[in-house]
């Protein structure tokens, strides 16, 4: 789960990570009041998940509360077009923060190193730029230390990484405390990524998180009730949000062929197969293992919420999932949802024959193999 900058800063502050003073605003008037309260210059920052916000005009300086209000009015309700989100992302809130006077910009990041199966802490003196570009062009400029799982990040490791990365010597002891607090926040909130870019050394010698990115491990949300309120705001696509409310794994992909299957790998392969047949999948939807009729009906409803969908392909290989249950769910769905688009269905494995028997004479298009199913759905939606 991706959370917004203002939420990340709330979480980080709880663990003692130093962040600029500021608050989030949903209206221009609120933005003005916050700017008034902070006094002096402020920055007004659009709260969106896409990177490249600054270049897209999503971060604006204001000298007065009036100006902060104007910036907020321009941003809230607009769509921010960034290189990462060419179709634009809606701005619902802005973060109003004290403007800080920057002496140096650095980079700090903590994430999982999958290959080494442990967390890696990254420090670079090249802050404020796209870190993937730094990694590409100046790999030596990123210092990495790996954390022993049962031990955690040790102070000497943090210190060593900061010295090695070339952080200003006089700032290292403050930065060490900052980095250790960041690690504590990463572990404590079950993050999959904590990134401070830029990590700022101010002209008066403070270390501050000018920006903050925190992604939370979805699997760990059960032990973080405090993130419940962030969940809703993390969803950008309304259909994805609805699917997740119903406990269905759904990713919208933008094409016109709805895809439903069981098992992530099988569904991914089905998408690949449809693309090979010349079609464009509208979504990824995994009904998981052992799905009952009700879930199958729900899945069909979710897929059909996308108005672009011109046809639906079911691909189910039953292990614990039973073909007859899937067929029942499809039938319920067709009746209750008054489905107008063609449906191709491929059932194999457990109770597939019983399932296919149930579907006979219903106008559904049967297929024996995955590739035949892909070819047929592409044909009928063309």
């Amino acid at each position: 789960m991706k959370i917004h900058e203002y939420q990340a800063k709330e979480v980080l502050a709880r663990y003692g990570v130093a962040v600029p003073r500021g608050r989030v605003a949903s209206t221009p008037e609120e933005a003005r009041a916050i700017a008034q309260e902070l006094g002096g210059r402020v920055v007004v920052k659009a709260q969106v998940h896409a990177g490249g916000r600054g270049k897209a005009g999503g971060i604006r300086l204001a000298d007065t509360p009036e100006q902060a209000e104007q910036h907020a009015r321009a941003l809230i309700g607009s769509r921010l077009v960034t290189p990462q989100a060419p179709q634009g992302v809606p701005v619902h809130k802005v973060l109003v923060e004290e403007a800080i006077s920057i002496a140096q910009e650095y980079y700090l990041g903590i994430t999982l190193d999958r290959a080494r199966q442990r967390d890696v802490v990254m420090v670079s003196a090249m802050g404020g730029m796209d870190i993937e570009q730094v990694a590409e062009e100046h790999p030596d400029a990123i210092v990495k230390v790996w954390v022993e799982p049962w031990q955690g990040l040790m102070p000497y490791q943090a210190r060593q990484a900061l010295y090695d990365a070339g952080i200003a010597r006089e700032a290292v002891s403050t930065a060490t405390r900052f980095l250790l607090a960041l690690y504590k926040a990463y572990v404590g909130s079950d993050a999959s990524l904590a990134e401070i870019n830029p990590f700022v050394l101010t002209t008066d010698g403070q270390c501050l998180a000018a920006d903050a990115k925190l992604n939370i491990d979805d699997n760990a949300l059960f032990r973080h009730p405090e993130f419940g309120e962030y969940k809703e705001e993390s969803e950008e696509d309304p259909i994805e949000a609805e699917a997740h409310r119903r406990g269905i794994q759904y990713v919208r992909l933008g094409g016109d062929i709805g895809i439903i299957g069981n098992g992530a790998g099988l569904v991914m392969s089905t998408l690949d197969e449809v693309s090979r047949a010349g079609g464009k999948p509208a979504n990824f939807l995994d009904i998981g293992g052992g799905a009952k009729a009700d879930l199958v009906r729900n899945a069909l409803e979710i897929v059909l919420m996308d108005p672009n969908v011109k046809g639906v392909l079911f691909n189910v290989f039953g292990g614990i999932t039973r073909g007859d249950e899937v067929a029942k769910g499809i039938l319920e769905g067709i009746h209750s949802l008054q489905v107008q688009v063609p449906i191709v269905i491929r059932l194999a494995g457990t109770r597939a024959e019983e399932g296919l028997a149930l579907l006979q004479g219903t106008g559904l298009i049967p297929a024996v193999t995955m590739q035949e199913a892909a070819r047929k759905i592409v044909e009928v939606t063309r």
Partner: protein
Amino acid sequence: MAVLIDKNTRVLVQGITGREGEFHTRQMLDYGTQVVAGVTPGKGGQEVLGVPVFDTVKQAVSATGADASVIFVPAPFAADAVLEAADAGIRLIVCITEGIPVQDMVKTVALVRQKGVRLIGPNCPGMMTAGQCKIGIMPGNIFTPGPVGLISRSGTLTYEIVDLLTKAGLGQSTCIGIGGDPVLGSTFVDLLPLFEEDPDTQAVVLVGEIGGSDEEIAAEYIRTMRKPVIGFISGRTAPPGKRMGHAGAIISGRTGTPQAKVDALRSAGVPVADALYEIPALVKQALTNRT
């Protein structure tokens, strides 16, 4: 003896009294697996399908001599269950549970590796030695004994491929679903050497997917293998930055792309099928070239 498990393997089911645990215990027994014990804290002394239930893994091991464990415990308690099994001397742990927090697995995997305990999963369908032993949730009826080993990051895709192999007259030795999570007890490169050494295996099918770099790491090892490996990568058309169902199936930045994986495997001499149905022919060809 095939890889890791055979007809002599004595299996313990952690979470045997749960709905999933009991259902799959029945399926495993039906397949002929020796399920010798179950564990559910607080339910020791009961029986499930004739299998004695114990309160702790330690008790179960000392009473029954179980040497492998399969875990159906819910996600919040699953890492603890793995550690309990490892501490009680179980040498092979298969964790089916999906949705375990990554941080729990980072710690757990580090510990089992240090102890030399083999962990398969989590978030996996388990493993099979065709005709001998089934540990986990794979549908037994599609398997048939033969010379092809299989290692896969996906469950249903494994069934699909096994079904294709069986229908093409190609039986299987051992099939292992390693799981769809970012941190796994065993990766491709941990298991390939076992297939290389296994006299019952003549060729190996490796089923990868987007995310991480385990396929690239495996490719380096495959260069040194005598036995042929056939590859398949799912998620060839997946968009970057989106988690495709599996927690581990996400392309982030430049790592985890399907093309990098296909390229790495091909450059190690591995034929990579573009579509599933091509796999049996590639396996047949590899077996022919070998003899």
